[in-house]
């Protein structure tokens, strides 16, 4: 049965590797797996070339190729008869295909070693279902976007926009965005990472479905899947995460048996058994604000959403986040000085009957540990250490964002300091790792330190 490439879109997700047969000028066949078959249009596909030595040589001698693809849902096989047209080593097609490989390479510590050499473009001469491949009829429902689907997408956009507009502060905006993504799109494991330009790192500031431990996780720009999405500012959808990682690790093992040093693999920030990943850059004009990442145990979970549509949703979220961060900065700047404000309703800083909490600030690592367990590092750590020290010296428990901004020792950037997001991160980390010590918002640009145990501060 003849099919159109668009009818077998699930085969292009890469969940089950495709195979390609070629032949040299002497008629010697060669058969191998392909890591990526990319749908270009109804008449063309592109194959990724990384280590395709023999296949590439064969195609130079004989442009004919045969590819077999398998639908990951039904396991039905399809065969494409192809004619090699050209290799693209730059341009939009190359960049799109390269992005996926770069992300996997970075994630498996293979940056620069495992990379796309070329996107080989083929004309599709025929595409057929392999009759008799399955002993039971496949349940291959028709694909395509219905009018209902379009309406659903518009409602989804409206839903997210409403949540953003309703948010009163950065923390509630982050929570409501993730809630909307779960309620409307079914993204039940998601996280928002905000970009700190001064450190060139992204920090997980909010998450849903991963448990609390994801908050505070960091990734450098360009590292791993999320770091690559941030650097390239392009959406990445990996329906075949597990297969891609296995492939990448196979390459890593082979490369490791040769010369050269490989970087450590970066652990996934979420589900240990994730089968698919969607990472969307959040940008305002060309400026990176952060990344939304979603994971799922279903390899086909994110395949139904159109990438352009998800980018529109992401733009809404990015503008909302950026606006809220700027507004938080304005509010903080307009906050009255501490002396003029009413005293915050906080409990005494110390309750002596509880065993003391030992907080240690390691100068060389710029990190704070609570009873030998890592709590937080960098600017949020310096903020906490400042207010803890001040509280211990003077007994003061309330603080303002303004006094943090004027303290150059904290190292806040002069513009776009993301102070509000750093305080959110600090609050979440304390709630999770040290619930006897809390940072409580007490008004516009103000917060209080609340300790339910005696504190022992050590600096090393």
């Amino acid at each position, binding site marked *: 049965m003849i099919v159109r490439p668009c009818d077998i879109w699930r085969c292009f997700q890469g969940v089950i590797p495709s195979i390609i*047969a070629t032949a040299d*000028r002497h008629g010697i066949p060669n058969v191998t797996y392909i890591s990526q078959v990319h749908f270009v249009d109804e008449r063309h596909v592109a194959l990724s070339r990384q280590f395709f030595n023999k296949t590439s040589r064969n195609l130079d001698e004989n442009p004919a190729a045969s590819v*077999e693809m398998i639908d990951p849902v039904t396991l039905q096989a399809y065969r494409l008869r192809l004619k090699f047209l050209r290799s693209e080593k730059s341009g939009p097609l190359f960049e799109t295909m390269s992005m996926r490989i770069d992300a996997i390479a970075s994630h498996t510590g293979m940056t620069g070693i495992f990379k796309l050499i070329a996107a080989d473009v083929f004309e599709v001469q025929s595409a057929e279902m392999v009759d008799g491949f399955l002993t039971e009829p496949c349940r291959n429902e028709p694909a395509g976007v219905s009018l209902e689907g379009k309406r659903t997408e518009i409602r989804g956009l409206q839903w997210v926009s409403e949540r953003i507009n309703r948010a009163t502060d950065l923390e509630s905006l982050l929570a409501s965005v993730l809630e909307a993504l779960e309620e409307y799109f079914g993204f039940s494991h998601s996280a928002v990472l905000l970009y700190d330009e001064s450190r060139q790192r992204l920090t997980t500031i909010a998450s849903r479905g991963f448990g609390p431990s994801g908050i505070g996780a960091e990734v450098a720009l360009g590292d791993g899947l999320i770091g690559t999405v941030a650097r390239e500012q392009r959406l990445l959808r990996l329906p075949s995460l597990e297969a891609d990682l296995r492939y990448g690790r196979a390459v890593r093992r082979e490369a490791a048996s040769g010369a050269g040093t490989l970087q450590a693999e970066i652990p996934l920030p979420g589900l240990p058994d994730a089968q698919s990943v969607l990472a969307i850059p959040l940008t305002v004009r060309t400026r990176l604000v952060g990344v939304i990442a979603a994971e799922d145990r279903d390899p086909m979970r994110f395949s139904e959403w159109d990438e352009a549509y998800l980018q529109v949703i992401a733009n809404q979220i990015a503008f909302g986040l950026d606006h809220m961060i700027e507004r938080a900065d304005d509010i903080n700047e307009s906050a009255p000085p501490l002396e003029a404000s009413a005293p915050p309703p906080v409990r005494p800083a110390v309750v002596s009957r509880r065993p003391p909490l030992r907080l240690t600030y390691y100068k060389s690592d710029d990190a704070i540990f609570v009873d030998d367990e890592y709590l937080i590092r960098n600017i949020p750590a310096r903020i906490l250490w400042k207010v803890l020290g001040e509280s211990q010296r003077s007994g003061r428990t309330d603080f303002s964002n303004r006094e943090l901004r004027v303290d150059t020792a904290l190292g806040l950037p002069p513009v776009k300091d993301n102070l509000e997001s750093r305080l959110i991160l600090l609050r979440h980390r304390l709630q999770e790792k040290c619930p006897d010590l809390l940072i409580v918002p007490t008004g516009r640009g103000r917060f209080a330190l609340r300790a339910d145990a005696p504190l022992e501060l050590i600096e090393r």
Partner: protein
Amino acid sequence: MADRVQRCLEPGLSILVGTVDPHGMPACCRGIAIASSDRLETLTVYLPVATSQEAIRNIALTKRIAVAASHPVDHCSTQMKGTTIETRLAHDEESAHVQRALDAFASTLDRIGVPRQLTRTVAHWPAFAVTMRVEDMFEQTPGPQAGCRLR
């Protein structure tokens, strides 16, 4: 080399088969099982009758065949190329070997997320048994060594 021969004959492998017609048009299909009693000097690959018509036609005309054996979990892969010396319908007593190979393959895929029940719906019997003389053996594990001659 002995280890590699052993790995090529382990259960649970993915078997890829490439053939070519007299005009140089290649074709691919999936095999279900392989067997060798002489350390891969010769190799028999089992192809489902239902899905290997083009391959069998090509083999009849050119005798050229390439067989790749790949472990789905770690991608350790070997490609063997050679000339077909016999093509026949697999005997009834070989069906147990083919069934075991499919079951092992289904178990392997089950470990990486493809349900066993689904893999078992893949047509596998009756099968053609294609025996080839292995003339070349190549490393095909993805990576910089891919394409290197093993034998």
